[in-house]
């Protein structure tokens, strides 16, 4: 087992996924990161905490995926001079997370290449750190928007196109700075953080039960994934296991969330490729899914269906029949529409070889989720480590290697088909019994949750003291995948950017949180 060679004193964290907690001195972090990379591991999340009220300093927390397990490493940092070695040299995705950590907590990555602020646009001054525990929850500062030093591209005929934060379409806000020659993109630089809402700080004024509702709103399109990851962490702390039926219901909700999002994106991908027919067809199919969600679960997007201890809604036999009927209808419709997409020369011309992320680049950047699988990266937490009920359902992972828009479209079609298969199995095999168990009201401890949502893995790390949240951090897979989009557009033409962007459909809210 790869974990054993890391020379760490590990404590197993109970719960739904294999997870370990360990402490390491900051001086060891770089060597540890190298050892994890050498074992085909990757950095999954990075966050920090203020431990000064406990007579210590600060702490850096890193979650790694090694050997199909989650390894949570906590490194104590000095109270006066909280520094740790740069991890971005080993795991490039650490770069933006490190910058966010400095903005929020004032702990710094020594030797990091990029020292610009990331989440701090000027809503708080450079010497204030809102996530520190001595900053009251209601503290605010005058908002003074600061300039940002974009990387300049120079040369004959090079010019810039600034886009956002308010975008032309109905999408989340962010800024894209294109450096182009003619129609060709030489460089794209993203600037995110516009929808930073202070979620981590907000968690700290909540009880462990109240926090579930906020977790379900880190990224609205992944509410089931986040609520499940959060509940997994809370249940780990409380050492309580939800009834089997509840776990199967969660998987049902997660697969319906996957289908709904893929349907919407496939519609917009057709539309951005010039085929409005696709948008009308797929949004119709998505609406059918949402309406059945509302009927069976009381919410079109399944918000607040997953709660600590289990789920809030049960499924009756008539509901099961309705789900199976929708699976059949969807399958028949998709066969027709997929054929039309596949045969449409104009659409395929836009999709093929557009926005390529090669498997080598994807591996270097640590691209995960559906975008990773479209570039040959076999990460899917439902498959490895797998967790109940996926261990019984045996998910077939869909992989492609082309890494272009067409590959990401293909993966979405394939994953819808797989989710339909999973939903059928769930409806047929779901065990009976209760749908929730009581979670003790005032637990203390730490726990972590890890769920493969439609976009990629959602991770929630939680520390609770007497039932109140002391520290909670929700990590979105978009942290890993946004930088890949910068690479994917290089050499493409500007009008292909919306198509490439939509093929990833990354979360702004989840990244900015």
């Amino acid at each position, binding site marked *: 087992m790869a974990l054993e060679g890391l020379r760490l004193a590990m404590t197993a964290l109970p719960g739904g996924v294999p997870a370990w907690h360990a402490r390491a001195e900051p001086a060891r972090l770089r060597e540890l990161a190298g050892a994890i990379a050498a074992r085909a591991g990757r950095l999954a999340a990075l966050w920090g905490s203020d431990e000064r009220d406990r007579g210590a300093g600060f702490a850096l927390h890193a979650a790694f995926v090694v050997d199909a397990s989650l390894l949570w490493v906590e490194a104590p940092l000095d109270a006066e001079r909280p520094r740790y070695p740069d991890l971005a040299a080993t795991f490039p995705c650490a770069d933006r997370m490190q910058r966010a950590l400095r903005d929020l907590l004032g702990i710094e990555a020594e030797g990091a290449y990029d020292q610009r602020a990331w*989440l701090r*646009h000027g*809503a*708080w001054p450079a010497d204030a750190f*809102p996530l520190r525990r001595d*900053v009251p*929850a*209601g*503290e*605010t*500062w005058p*908002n003074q928007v600061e300039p940002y030093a974009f990387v300049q591209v120079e040369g004959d005929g090079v010019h810039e196109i600034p886009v956002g*934060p*308010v975008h*032309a*379409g*109905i*999408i*989340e*806000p962010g800024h894209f700075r294109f450096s182009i020659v003619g129609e060709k993109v030489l460089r794209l630089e993203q600037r995110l*953080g*516009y*929808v*930073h*809402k*202070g*979620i981590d*700080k*907000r968690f700290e004024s909540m009880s462990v039960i109240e926090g579930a*509702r*906020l977790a379900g*709103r*880190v*990224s*609205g*399109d992944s*509410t089931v994934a986040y609520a499940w990851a959060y509940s997994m962490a809370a249940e780990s702390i409380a050492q309580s296991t939800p009834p089997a039926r509840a776990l199967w219901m969660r998987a049902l909700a997660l697969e319906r969330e996957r289908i709904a999002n893929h349907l*919407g994106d496939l519609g917009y991908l057709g539309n951005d490729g010039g085929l409005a*027919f696709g*948008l*009308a*067809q797929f*949004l*119709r199919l*998505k*609406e059918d899914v*949402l309406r059945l969600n509302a009927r069976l679960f009381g919410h*079109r*997007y399944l*918000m607040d269906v997953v709660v600590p201890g289990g789920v809030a809604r049960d499924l009756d036999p008539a509901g099961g029949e309705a789900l199976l009927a929708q699976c059949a209808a969807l399958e028949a419709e998709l066969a*027709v*529409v997929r*054929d*039309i997409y596949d*045969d*449409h020369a104009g659409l395929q011309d836009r999709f093929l070889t557009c926005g390529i992320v090669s498997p080598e680049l994807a591996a270097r950047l640590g691209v995960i989720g559906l975008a990773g699988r479209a570039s040959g990266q076999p990460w899917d937490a439902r498959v490895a480590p797998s967790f109940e009920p996926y261990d019984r359902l045996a998910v077939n992972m869909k992989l492609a290697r082309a890494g272009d828009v067409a590959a990401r479209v293909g993966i979405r079609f394939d994953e819808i088909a797989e989710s339909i298969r999973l939903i059928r199995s769930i409806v047929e095999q779901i065990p009976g019994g209760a749908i929730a168990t009581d979670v003790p009201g005032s637990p203390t401890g730490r726990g972590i949750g890890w769920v493969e949502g439609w976009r990629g893995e959602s991770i929630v790390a939680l520390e609770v003291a007497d039932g109140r949240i002391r520290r909670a951090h929700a990590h979105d897979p978009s942290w890993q995948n946004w930088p890949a989009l910068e690479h994917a557009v290089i050499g493409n033409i500007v009008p292909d950017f919306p198509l490439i962007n939509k093929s990833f459909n990354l*979360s*702004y*809210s989840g990244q*900015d949180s």
Partner: protein
Amino acid sequence: MYRLLKQIVRTGIKTEPPPSADEALRVVQQRLKAEILGVFAGSLAIRAVDAGSCNGCELEIHMLNNPYYNLEGLGIKFVASPRHADMLLVTGPVSRNMEVALRRTYDATPEPKLVVAVGDCGCTGGVFGESYASCGRVANVIPVDVAVPGCPPTPIALMQGILTAISAGAGR
């Protein structure tokens, strides 16, 4: 092409009747004259602004254009620039990092203009509240005519909110 046309014919017309305006959603009394509302009612241009939402409200705003609701069939369409817009449809809470962008978008929208705040967060700040990073509800940053609660509001509720904003309202 044959299969595409066949699928269109087979799908048929899915559009359902639109809801009516709902006076309960109105925040301030109708400010605009009947003549202007008459023009808006036939052709309303909306600029959607995500000022900090979790993206849940955007999912439902997208669904307004699906064949069931067919908002564009009512002469209401989304435009790419605030300079082309009659109405801002704003989701929140307004993050502090979006505060300036939202004010600028509002200023760039020509008069007469309407603002509809969307969702529990747009109406009250919702689960995110007010903090170092969040200004809370939309009305804390720009004037709001109509507020549509919900987490997220359904497409029907959104349509009601939009139609309320362009209706004359009670007492006129």
